[in-house]
């Protein structure tokens, strides 16, 4: 018994000291640390695989912004994006929400791979005359007898002027500015692109197909509004390349109508051919139809919390918890006297262990972050934890009233109390587990920390309270020291 008592105390305070010395703390939720949270719902029902792809794409996107601790999770059929601790939450929000767009930009020239990288401020310089991919430089001419169906000047080199200009970052990748972007699947190839002339909204449907020659192509239709716009853009870029940009990467940069001598209307549909594989054709089709994602997303709820408000909420939560704890301890000491001290000891062991576990869990991806709902869960669990002691002590008093010695009472009392504690904690745990599994949003954090502290209660009751009280009881039967059980019991024994 002494062993389990000492061991429990050693484990609790040892792990607390370890986590503290490692500088680990709980992973604070965004309502405490400040930050951004968005819940997205797919507009049309979609498969689980598609949703997992959405999570992957959003994760890449958020991580691309250079913020740490961002999380993208699937919760039921929704995707939850949370970025805690950012100071400029609204800018991040705009980027996460907006980059879903597909942009059509004219290709100005190919540029060399960046050697010495530094961020370019101001407008990018124009392409050198010999490097520019203009209609006259490209000199596209239809040639029905060749394999491709046309001839063009393929000797134009990348412009070396941009060797020390970095690729445009997502934050600077704005619709109406020129950008330098990499080409999907071609390492080191970069293009200088002009401002966007059209967005993915003009595209109706897109699908990958095998054409009559047996090669993969992407066919697409245009919306009724998009059709005239596309004709205008295609006319402007006739016999030049038009880049299809998605999330800062050029998906494809086809030549416009290289097999036609003069521009003709697309009539609401088009075809992109080239050296596609089945996979790359399908990916381009998905990108063209849905933007970045395989489904269209709709924001159900958006929340930004400023770090100052988050901090004041943290103070409020901790303050309330401490005041509540102090009130409870005061009451139990007044009511149970010496036994009240057992509760104080027990609660401090529980608290040390809980804090260590929560801090350690903060370093895994498994646990939900510690938010205000979680704080409330812990505060509520104070009641459940203390109740185990109350159940035990009331049983003790019953046994003592039956005229049994204190030594016998602590044993018998514990056995009957233990069953009650188990039954009651099972119900509490049942509620926590069900809530955690079924509910959405903040509820999960609440349920998680409630369930955790309920488990802790069972553990502490068996390994800490039981040996401590039984040992005290043994001492109490030998001597009549003030700290013995008697102080909490005497008035109930003899009448």
């Amino acid at each position, binding site marked *: 018994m002494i062993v389990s008592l000492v061991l429990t105390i050693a484990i609790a305070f040892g792990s607390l000291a370890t986590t503290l010395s490692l500088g680990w703390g709980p992973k604070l939720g965004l309502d405490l640390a400040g930050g951004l949270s968005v819940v997205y*719902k797919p507009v049309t029902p979609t498969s689980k695989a598609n949703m997992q792809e959405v999570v992957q794409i959003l994760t890449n996107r958020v991580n691309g912004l250079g913020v740490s601790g961002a999380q993208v999770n699937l919760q039921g059929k929704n995707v939850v994006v949370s970025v805690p601790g950012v100071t*400029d939450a609204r800018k991040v929000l705009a980027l996460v929400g907006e980059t879903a767009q597909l942009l059509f930009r004219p290709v100005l020239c190919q540029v060399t791979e960046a050697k010495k990288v530094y961020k370019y401020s101001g407008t990018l310089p124009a392409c050198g005359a010999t490097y520019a991919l203009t209609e006259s430089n490209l000199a596209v001419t239809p040639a029905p007898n060749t394999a491709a169906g046309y001839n063009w000047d393929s000797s134009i080199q990348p412009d070396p002027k941009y060797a020390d200009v970095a690729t445009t970052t997502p934050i600077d990748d704005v619709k109406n500015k020129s950008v330098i972007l990499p080409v999907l699947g071609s390492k080191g190839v970069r293009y200088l692109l002009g401002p966007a002339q059209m967005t993915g909204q003009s595209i109706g449907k897109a699908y990958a197909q095998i054409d009559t020659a047996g090669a993969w192509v992407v066919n697409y239709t245009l919306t009724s509004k998009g059709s005239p716009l596309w004709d205008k853009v295609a006319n402007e870029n006739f016999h030049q390349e038009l880049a299809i940009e998605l999330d800062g990467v050029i998906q494809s940069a086809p030549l416009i109508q290289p097999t036609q001598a003069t521009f003709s209307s697309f009539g609401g549909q088009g075809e992109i051919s080239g050296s596609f594989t089945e996979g790359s054709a399908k990916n381009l089709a998905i990108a063209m139809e849905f933007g970045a994602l395989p489904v269209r997303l709709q*924001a*159900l*709820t*958006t*929340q*930004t*919390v*400023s*770090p*100052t*408000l988050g901090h*004041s*909420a943290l*103070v*409020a*939560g901790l*303050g*309330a*918890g401490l005041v*509540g*704890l102090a009130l409870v301890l005061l*009451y*139990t000491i007044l*009511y149970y006297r010496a036994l009240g001290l057992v509760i104080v000891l027990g609660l401090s062991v529980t608290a040390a262990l809980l804090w260590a576990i929560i801090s350690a869990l903060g370093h895994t991806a498994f646990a939900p972050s510690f938010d*205000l*709902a979680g704080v*409330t869960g812990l505060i*509520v669990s104070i*009641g459940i934890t*203390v*109740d185990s002691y*109350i*159940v035990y002590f*009331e049983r003790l008093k*019953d*046994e003592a009233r039956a*005229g*049994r010695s204190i030594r016998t009472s602590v044993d*018998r009392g514990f056995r*009957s109390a233990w069953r*009650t504690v188990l*039954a*009651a904690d*099972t*119900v*509490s745990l*049942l*509620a926590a587990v*069900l809530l955690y599994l*079924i*509910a*959405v*949003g*903040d*509820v999960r954090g*609440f349920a998680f920390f409630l369930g955790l502290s309920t488990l802790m209660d069972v553990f502490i009751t068996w390994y800490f309270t039981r040996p401590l009280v039984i040992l005290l009881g043994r001492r109490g039967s030998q001597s009549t020291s003030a700290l013995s059980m008697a102080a909490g019991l005497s008035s*109930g024994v003899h*009448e």
Partner: protein
Amino acid sequence: MSDVTKAPGRFGRLYRGLTTVDFVGRRKVWFTISIVIILVGLGSLSIRGFNLGIDFKGGSSWEVLAPKTSVSAVTHSVEKAGLSSPIVEKLGSDTYQVTADLNAFSAAKQLSVTTDVVNALAKVANVNPNQVSTSSVGPTWGGQITNRALEALIVFFIAVVAYISIRFEPKMAIAAFVAMVHDLLVTVGVYSLFGFQITPDTVIAILTILGYSLYDTVVVFDRVRDNAGGVLKSGDITYGEMVNLSMNQTLARSINTSLVAILPVLAVLLVGADLLGATTLQNYGLALFVGLTSGAYSSIFIASPLLAWMKEREPRFRDLAERVAQRSDHRILSPATAALLTGDGAQRTVGVARSTRTSTVSPRARKQKRR
């Protein structure tokens, strides 16, 4: 007790286990009180409905920490920024919350108005726009939360009834279930009656309350089961009296537990929400406070009397009640006297139980439930 010369006060009697409150006998009184409270609540619900938060209706809200301004100044500035009928509230000592419905606007317009209001609030509060918190909710979000919560509720009800039926007995499951529904109805009624705002946090809190109410009930029923195998077998008392005895035996525990549970919640409500102005805490605290109070009440005044009423209709306990009524030495037991009554016999059990701790067969013919 008549033989106590210096009659202790109410609290002293509770502390010493001398209470003989007749919970079961006065069940009509308790049931009537509850029914009246529930009917008033339901009446209010049908007339006034709920005060739903933006999470259920959809809408936008902004929050900023601004020690040196006023509600009217904030209202004026956000109206200038383009909100038609904003609700401006002061939370805690110096947090301002603005609520408005922007769902009628297009997505682009919503974004621009949101930004305008952020800038206006930042200017009024004299802080950086980054210090303004925003929240916008589409009209379908709250419905989704509620549906999930209802799903959780139904699964929880089924699981709990199954658990108690197996661990205790089906009639206890019914009584506990009724007590839970009671707490649900009371909380919902109080929310409608006082016009408290319902947020997703409230829904969560209500689910917790149900778990807690049940937890409370289980502790009392555990004692009832204990006594059913002990005192009841002596044939001296009726089932109802046995339940009553169990109630009195666990009364100190019930009151202490409820106090201990309500104290921290009260701290959340007063310190966390009122002084420091954390709205989430307020939402939780309020629902938990109403629910815990109702839960403590229902486990004592609803679940147990209901159980006694159902059990006394069983033939064997009806017979028992008739036999007990014919006895002349019939008296009401207090927890202290009941303990003395069983003390002797139980003492011997201790010896037996100790020596056969690892054995699975109890040498006593009388079914002993302590294992």
